[in-house]
């Protein structure tokens, strides 16, 4: 009897909790990776409103203030917070401007590659047969290409520019989505609800878009978040090699490259962009992981 009462009380409480959306949001928020979110928000703000917050003109050289260290070191000043490079350009301003470039490249690439990959995955996974064979062989081809090699070759052919970087990364990036999402489509399409939808008279397009796509969005979002990190690293690598965004525009990768010559006497030139790349990529990955758990409908009721 006591047990029964207790279980009733417990169900009442859980029922209340379910209805109480405020507490639901609170629980969700408590587990969110706040550090990552804050870093990514700072990244986004810098990317979007960089021109308004940067303390100096990132392109303006000042040969009286070359190789200034960060403010806490001897010879550093609060005016050049994180120091200056060998041409006397303010590193903080350049980082902020670089955030804009990384953000643009990152988001455009994951969006375009995501769309392309999803379309291929849906067609290939759902239609099957020869469509699947052809699309998957193409995907295999793209997956087997040595990522950086091809990127370097393409960049050399197309010439360094922001648009070309985006094009290259989309070409190389979509196959990853297509492969993973196709697996998801195969899993989802075996579900009875898809068969029931066929029985109900749904067209193939409707089944793909309305029944299968929502079931793979979780994976897509997680993949895209993780890809954001990869794309930023790729962009930085290409810029580091001088094949990315052409100077004088300050991409993080090219800033690292600039600092190589001075690494022993002015560590800050490549340290800061390197640190920023690390933080943004790590945050994107952590957020991706958290989203993976949160987006599962079974966790929504927690």
């Amino acid at each position, binding site marked *: 009897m006591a047990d029964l009462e207790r279980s009733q009380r417990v169900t009442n409480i859980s029922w209340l909790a379910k209805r109480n959306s405020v507490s639901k949001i609170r629980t969700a928020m408590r587990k969110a990776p706040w550090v990552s979110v804050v870093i990514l928000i700072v990244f986004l703000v810098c990317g979007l409103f960089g021109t308004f917050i940067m303390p100096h003109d990132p392109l303006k050289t000042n040969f009286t203030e070359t190789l200034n260290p960060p403010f806490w070191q001897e010879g550093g000043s609060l005016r050049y917070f994180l120091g200056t490079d060998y041409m006397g350009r303010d590193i903080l301003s350049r980082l902020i401007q670089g955030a804009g470039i990384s953000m643009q490249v990152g988001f455009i690439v994951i969006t375009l590659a995501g769309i392309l990959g999803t379309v291929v995955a849906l067609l290939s996974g759902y239609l099957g047969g020869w469509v699947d064979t052809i699309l998957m062989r193409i995907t295999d081809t793209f997956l087997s290409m040595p990522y950086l090699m091809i990127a370097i070759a393409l960049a050399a052919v197309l010439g360094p520019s922001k648009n070309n970087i985006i094009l290259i990364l989309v070409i190389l990036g979509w196959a990853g989505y297509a492969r993973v999402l196709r697996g998801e489509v195969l899993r989802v399409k075996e579900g*009875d609800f898809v068969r029931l939808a066929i029985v*109900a008279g749904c067209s193939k397009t409707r089944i793909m878009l309305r*029944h299968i796509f929502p079931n793979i969005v979780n994976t897509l979002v997680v993949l895209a978040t993780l890809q954001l990190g990869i794309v930023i690293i790729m962009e930085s690598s290409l810029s580091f090699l001088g094949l990315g965004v052409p100077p004088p525009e300050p991409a993080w990768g090219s800033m690292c490259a600039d600092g190589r010559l001075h690494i022993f006497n002015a560590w800050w030139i490549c340290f800061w962009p390197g640190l920023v790349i690390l933080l943004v990529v790590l945050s994107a990955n952590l957020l991706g992981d958290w989203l993976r758990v949160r987006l599962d409908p079974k966790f929504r009721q927690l």
Partner: protein
Amino acid sequence: MISGNVIEVKDLKTYFFTSRGVVKAVDGVSFRLKEGETLGLVGESGCGKSITCLSILRLVPRPAGRIVSGEIIFDGENLLSKSEKEMRHIRGRRISMILQDPMTSLNPVLTIGDQVAEPVRIHQNLDKIMVREKVKEMLRLVRIPSPEVRMREYPHQMSGGMRQRIVGAMVLSCQPQLLIADEPTTSLDVTIQAQFLRLLKEIQQQSNLSMIIVTHDFGIVAKVCDRLAVMYAGKIVESADVRDLFNNPIHPYTKALLNSLPKMEVKVDKLFSIEGQPPELHDLPPGCSFAPRCSEEKEICKKAYPPQSVVKDGHNVCCWLHT
């Protein structure tokens, strides 16, 4: 409707062309079903029950499976001569189907309301408010408490029985003439089974729906079916009204199936079972396919398949013991 039959299947043959040979999953099945009647299809696993149902909807798994010959006359029209587009118009609107597992029959990321509304949206030209009303009406019909709340919820918030009733609401939302239920209650527990069957029966009486129920449960057959067809290795071996079949089974396979049911009044240690396995469908013996397992096997049984003979009006059997 000249003959009063909702559906008439004539000599349906659905074969699968595999690397191991031709699998005759459905091999010359014929039956007919009147308006408001319920047909039970029983038989062991793999005897072609489900493929028969899928054939009616023209959803045989491609490319291996193909309907080789036969006719499926639904409401006076042959479904096998319809185009894919015309079939889409029939599926869900005039012929519906309930699948075995309610746990996976609903899309986990769409709300109940959206899913029940789907067939209505596809097949009927109704505006949003009308669709909502229709959904509520359907949910009420299948006894879902407080439909306004429930239609905003997701499948994982429902129990198995509720989910199956929601599937019921979905498939019945366009008032089909024929409902095919492929083992609709196998994954539900016994009390829920009874409840769901009673509900189906009630809805059937209200709307004069015809049903084909695939099952291996004779309890269900006795409860809801009017006619019964026993399938073995892709063929219907005996068909009759439920009462006739229970009282006077002719085919040894039917007898054996009925014998396998435990009886309330007799205490037994070991349940009766039919010796052996059903034959491989790509390698059928030339004669009666049940002969190797039959207790009353005769010489002729191994040589030729028995013709259909009439026991009494509406009771047909294919067996050499009754010719």
